[in-house]
């Protein structure tokens, strides 16, 4: 881009001033100077000191250099020497070389002027033309060497005046251009500030093209890799058209770091820092570009300051874009990491939930299988049990009829009937009777036989002993004993098989195949079944029942049984197998039934209370206590499934688990799905 030009910026011609009162000499000198300078300099001739001063000042104001002025000794207003001495102190004539034009002067008359430095040459009248030319050449050259701010070696070369003037003109032009450029450089980036990135790039490309002599651009097809990561760089690419991506290979995967942020200048960073290429550069589209060697770039930048400005601006802007992109990438990485961490946490949480769900599932599956097994066994037991119960009834009837039919002795028949009917004596009563009988009969063996034959009353025994004396007393007693035992055996058969029937019934209702949620369930049925089935665990436990009148509930009875079983066995375990277990039912909230299982165990520490419903919670370190942890987790799960809830309150000596279940009575009003009647 050429420097801007304007009329006021045009370089002035040099001014040569002639001042003389003598018209003839004045015109001759001016005319000869015009000839000698061939129009390269302006020659102005004035008549006296005042117009000479005017001319100098006007040239100074206009910035027109005055290399030489020739002043005649004869001036209308005084001597030439006096004028020179005056001008010498005037800033407008400071740089001007001053000549005195005069005929031969008396010796010493120039001393003052010379000593003051106000006189640099002398033209003696009359002069020869070559003498004048030599004087002007020397004078202008001296001026040029002194006045041009940068000593310019080109001024040493010319041997004649026209060549000298030409060299001066060229030097002054260069000065002017440099001055303009310097003025621009001072404002460099601010000059470009108003330009878009694209405009800066275009300006840079224009300057560079000019500096390089408009080289032929290289065509790069799309997909070509211009530089590879790690390449040694010997020149740069300046992208004229098309786009380039900067990519890196990350573990075999090509990752694009810059595409629109790549910029026009590719490879400079590596070149400037003498490193290998950091990125690979690949043409995204067909690209036209200049390949610029380092030396060429360096020369162009040195000779063209505007190129430097645009080049640096373009480079800085592209680096700024890349840097912003790097920051964006960093921010992206941060965001991604955060999202990833969040996702990972969610996954871990999901995995935990899945594991919990799986454990519960396995456990409830186990319970279901066990329940089926129990229900199946209970069912299978029914047939033989029914046979046993009936058989016992039949034996009871038949035995008595048969003894009658066979004509058995009356006391034998009575013994059978007694065995069937009597409430068994306690072992203590037995012992007391035996010793009483032994005392009365004075025969331990007979007393024992009497007792076994069911003769307990001492008077009866004594009478019987008398009756039997002499007969086969022992044989009759043995018959009585058998008869009694027969009756007792049938009685025991009936009562024992009756107990089995009770257990089998409880088992069947406890382990019934999953019936789903049913209405009209009486919570007491399940509670009592559970107490009966786990009776062996409750032998040393006093079970207190505090059953308030409650509505029937809508629930899955099999699942309720599982809840009661877990709560009751937990309570018994907590009390170490002995103590008081209190079962309560009440309905403190309309539409809800509350079942409480209360134990008098040591209580649950407050910091454990929160967690006892968690899966696999254990009170023993390093050991999963399924009896407590899994059981209560299952209880909560089952309570939820039955649209109820379970809560716990505990203090030393008293732990209460409360199970809330929705009443199924229409009159009770269905709780509208709120499983939390206390609003806690």
């Amino acid at each position, binding site marked *: 881009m050429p420097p801007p030009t304007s009329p006021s910026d045009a370089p002035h011609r040099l001014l040569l001033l002639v001042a003389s009162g003598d018209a003839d000499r004045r015109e001759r000198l001016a005319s000869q100077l015009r000839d000698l300078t061939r129009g390269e300099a302006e020659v102005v001739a004035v008549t006296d000191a005042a117009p000479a001063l005017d001319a100098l000042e006007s040239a100074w104001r206009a910035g027109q250099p005055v290399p030489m002025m020739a002043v005649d000794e004869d001036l209308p207003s005084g001597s030439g020497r006096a004028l020179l001495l005056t001008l010498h102190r005037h800033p407008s004539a400071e740089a001007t070389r001053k000549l005195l034009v005069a005929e031969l002067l008396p010796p010493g008359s120039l001393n003052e002027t010379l000593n003051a430095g106000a006189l640099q040459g002398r033209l003696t009248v009359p002069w020869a033309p070559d003498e004048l030319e030599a004087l002007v050449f020397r004078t202008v050259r001296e001026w040029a060497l002194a006045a041009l701010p940068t000593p310019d070696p080109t001024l040493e070369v010319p041997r004649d005046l026209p060549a000298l003037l030409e060299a001066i003109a060229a030097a002054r032009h260069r000065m002017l251009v440099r001055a303009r450029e310097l003025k621009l450089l001072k404002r460099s980036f601010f000059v470009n500030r108003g330009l878009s990135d694209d405009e800066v790039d275009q300006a840079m490309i224009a300057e560079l093209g000019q500096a390089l002599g408009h080289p032929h651009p290289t065509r790069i097809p799309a997909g070509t890799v211009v530089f590879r990561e790690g390449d040694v760089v010997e020149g740069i690419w300046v992208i004229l058209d098309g786009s380039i991506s900067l990519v890196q290979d990350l573990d075999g995967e090509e990752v694009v770091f810059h595409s629109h942020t790549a910029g026009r200048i590719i490879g400079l960073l590596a070149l400037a820092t003498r490193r290998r290429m950091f990125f690979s550069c690949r043409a995204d589209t067909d690209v036209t570009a200049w390949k610029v060697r380092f030396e060429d770039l360096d020369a162009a930048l040195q000779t063209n300051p505007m190129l430097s400005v645009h080049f640096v601006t373009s480079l800085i802007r592209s680096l700024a874009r890349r840097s912003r992109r790097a920051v964006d990438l960093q921010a992206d990485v941060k965001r991604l990491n955060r999202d990833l961490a969040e996702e990972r946490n969610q996954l871990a949480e999901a995995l935990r939930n899945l594991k919990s769900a799986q454990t519960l599932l396995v456990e409830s599956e186990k319970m279901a299988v066990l329940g089926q097994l129990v229900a199946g066994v209970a069912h299978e037991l029914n047939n033989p049990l029914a046979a046993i119960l009936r058989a016992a009834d039949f034996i009871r009837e038949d035995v008595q009829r048969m003894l009658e039919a066979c004509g058995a002795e009356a006391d034998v028949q009575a013994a059978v009937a007694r065995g069937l009917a009597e409430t*068994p004596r*306690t*072992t203590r009563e*037995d012992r007391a009777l035996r010793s009483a009988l032994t005392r009365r009969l004075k025969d331990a063996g007979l007393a*024992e036989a009497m007792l076994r034959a069911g003769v307990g009353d001492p008077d009866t025994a004594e009478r019987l002993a008398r009756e039997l004396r002499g007969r086969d007393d022992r044989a009759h007693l043995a018959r009585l004993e058998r008869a009694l*035992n027969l009756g007792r055996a049938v009685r*025991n058969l009936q009562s024992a098989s009756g107990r089995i029937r009770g257990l089998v019934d409880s088992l069947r209702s406890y382990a019934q195949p999953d019936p789903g949620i049913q209405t009209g369930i009486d919570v007491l049925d399940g509670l009592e079944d559970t107490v009966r089935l786990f009776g062996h665990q409750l*032998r*040393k436990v006093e079970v207190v029942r505090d059953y308030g009148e409650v509505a029937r509930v809508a629930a899955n009875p099999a699942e309720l049984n599982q809840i009661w079983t877990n709560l009751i066995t937990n309570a018994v375990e907590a009390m170490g197998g002995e103590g008081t277990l209190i079962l309560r039912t009440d309905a403190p909230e309309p539409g809800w039934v509350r079942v409480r299982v209360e134990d008098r165990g040591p209580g649950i520490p407050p910091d454990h209370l929160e967690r006892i419903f968690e899966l696999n919670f254990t009170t023993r370190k390093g050991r999963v206590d399924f009896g407590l942890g899994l059981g209560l987790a299952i209880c909560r799960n089952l309570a939820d499934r039955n649209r109820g809830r379970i809560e716990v309150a505990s203090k030393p000596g008293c732990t209460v688990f409360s199970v809330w279940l929705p009443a199924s009575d229409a009159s009770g009003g269905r709780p509208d799905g709120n499983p939390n009647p206390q609003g806690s």
Partner: protein
Amino acid sequence: MERQVVILCVEDEAEVREALLRDLQPFSAVFRIEAAVDADEAREVVESLDGEKADLGLVLCDHRLPGTTGVDFLVDLNGRKGAREARKVLVTGQAGLEDTVRAVNEAGLDHYIAKPWTPEALQAVVRNELTIFVLAGERDLKPFLPVLDAPRILEAIAQRASDQ
């Protein structure tokens, strides 16, 4: 037989106790058979034996007892004078391994009979245990010949005769 040898049967369920007692009848000709419903009563019986010229020879004990366990009772019994030598048998369907080990180690348990039992097995155990008891403690072995392990008792009688 200057002193009676007692078989004590501890069982809280009446039907089961009666069945056990009936299965023990073959021994009643020679042994006195006592029954108790719980540990307290069983201890009373054991304490009363001293004044009645009777020795506790065998305890058949259920494991599940009201208020305690058979093993606890046997452990307690094993520490009592006059009961240490008695043969001890658990008759149960519900003793766990831990309890059983404790019964062997601390109560000197001699045998374990699982419910439901067969009368043959029960009687074989009782015969064997009582044989061991009388061989160890009784001077006059002849009365036991009809109900206990006759060959061993005869052998012992012969042995004692030759020792003298």
